[in-house]
């Protein structure tokens, strides 16, 4: 089965849109190349596993430099910034994040040629993980 990525132009919170503009310097990210793996349903929003990977040869001439992760409806959208180098051999990182409620998680990648790509995926959260 194929899961279609949610379009980059889909609705998002103004704070998230602003955080993405800040990351890209105002450049519009394209869809594609970025894959975000998260559980579709998170029973506990305190610890939601996340894997982000980007389709890239990771050579000195052509690699992923930076990957930003945003959570659209958390109290603040910033989650993480990964700084990658060709020494990794593959563009990937894993971590665990907090999600306060059901929302989209967004990844934006900057390539060494300056292009930006984006992916977003929805996670349904049963018990929110941002404390109260």
């Amino acid at each position: 089965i194929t899961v279609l990525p949610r379009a980059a132009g889909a609705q998002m919170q103004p704070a998230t849109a602003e955080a993405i503009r800040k990351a890209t310097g105002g450049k519009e990210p394209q869809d594609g190349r970025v894959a975000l793996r998260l559980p579709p349903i998170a029973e506990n929003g305190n610890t939601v596993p996340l894997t982000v990977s980007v389709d890239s040869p990771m050579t000195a001439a052509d690699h992923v430099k930076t990957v930003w992760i945003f959570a659209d409806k958390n109290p603040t959208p910033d989650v993480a910034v990964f700084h990658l180098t060709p020494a990794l051999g593959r563009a990937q990182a894993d971590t665990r994040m907090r999600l306060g409620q059901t929302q989209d998680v967004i990844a934006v990648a900057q390539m060494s040629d300056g292009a930006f790509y984006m992916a977003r995926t929805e996670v349904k959260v049963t018990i929110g993980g941002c404390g109260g």
Partner: protein
Amino acid sequence: MATPIGQPRVRLPAQAKAGEIIEIRTLISHVMETGQRRDQEGKTIPRDIIKRFVAKFDGQEVFAMDLATAISANPYITFPFKAEKPGTFEFTWTNDAGEERKATAELKVA
């Protein structure tokens, strides 16, 4: 006052083949206090997080991460690395107060 940074744990394969892409898994004990919670008296518990992780191989930075309050307690970070030659990894976690915790690991390449 910042919570002391807990014990770091790092896992990588005992030995890698030259050219193989291995996975490096790291975990560090830390509360990752968001600054959005209140204590029983209703006072805000101040933010206190690990805000940066850096991995160096033989002195060269190969991977880094800026962490925000949305990263879970006891931050777990995994990343790949292409094993070309033996060497030493140095991992550094830094908290909001600028305190550091370091760990090292040897990469053996057959």
